[in-house]
């Protein structure tokens, strides 16, 4: 049943994601999927669908589907994920930097004091 509705050149992002995506497709897409003809790209109706965006389940042509971490995404979902990743990385980076600043300040203080004292002891 599933094999009948998916075009031959359709690239499955992951079997689970496609299986999840198909039953919940919006009405026009489901209609296209259940109809005899091949499904079309949501952005380029003249092009056949090549993949589904795993996030918003929009059918995409080869030009619109972008592989990201092993799954296909549309441009909008890709931008949202990348923005979220940058935000996560930035927050983690600042937390790491704050910890690093505190540790470096403590290390600088104690290293200066103890190494200088040790050096003075040896020189004396």
């Amino acid at each position: 049943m599933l094999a009948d509705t998916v075009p031959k050149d359709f690239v499955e992002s992951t079997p689970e994601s496609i299986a999840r995506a198909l039953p919940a497709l919006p009405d026009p897409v489901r209609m296209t999927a259940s109809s005899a003809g091949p499904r079309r790209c949501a952005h380029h109706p003249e092009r056949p669908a090549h993949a589904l965006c795993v996030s918003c389940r929009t059918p995409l042509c080869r030009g619109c589907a972008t592989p990201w971490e092993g799954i296909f995404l549309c441009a909008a979902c890709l931008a949202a994920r990348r923005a979220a990743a940058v935000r996560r990385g930035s927050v983690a980076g600042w937390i790491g930097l704050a910890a690093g600043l505190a540790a470096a300040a403590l290390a600088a203080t104690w290293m200066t004091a103890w190494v200088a004292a040790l050096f003075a002891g040896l020189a004396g």
Partner: protein
Amino acid sequence: MRERLGLGELLDDAADLAVRTLPDRSALAVLAVLPLRLLQVWFLDRLIELGPGAIQHGRYLATIAGFLTAALVPAFWGRAELARACQSALGGEGWGVGRRARLGIGWRRYLLGLYAALVAAALLPAAGWGIVTLPFLALAPGIAAATCPYQERPGLFAPLGVAARGFSQPRLLIGLLFSGALAVLAAFVNLFALFQLGLFAARAASGLDLAWWGRALSIESRLFDLLVAAGALLLVEPLWIAALSVLVHRGRARANGDDLAAWIAEVRSGEAGRAAA
């Protein structure tokens, strides 16, 4: 066009930047670093005074070292502002043509650079034992300031990576180290001579008994020697930061092709000028 940057050219550019183009930023850097240098004098004086017994006064020395670390915060700001101004002047932002310079390193870049400088400050005492490592780590605080305008990404390692790329021209850095050491020595001798000259003039003009001042300003006075050394370091500071900024800027321009782009633009503007004439 792409011949190597020479030490003489580097020092010329640095002197031009620090003294002629950006005197206000140089003064700001000196003022910002002044508390750090005075605290270093205090720390060293106490350390020499305590001598072999210093190891039993670890907490006392750690308290002064804590002040030293705190003083690094404004000192690094002054250095970073000078480095930023140097970067802008070298990048052709028209710093020296009457446009008012703005205080603009930005708190993000400042924090990233400060982190690199603090790591260097933590490693520096440990490197004091190594004759080979010490000169390179002595460069690290200046390199941290010179690379500060190029800091972008927060994290534990990214700021250190940006600072580490400042060490990409070891031949010039070694030359700069020798030049810096000579400059500090020359500044020390000149400052010392200036104080002695002042003392001699005061004695001659007033006829007062300045025996106490004579002892305080003599070479035997440890505190005076340390203060003059700090003064010499302060005088050289803007030149040092400017030289490292030029080195970092030219190194990056060479790495990403900005120097070639500037040269092509210059050639084209020259051709256009000739055609118009």
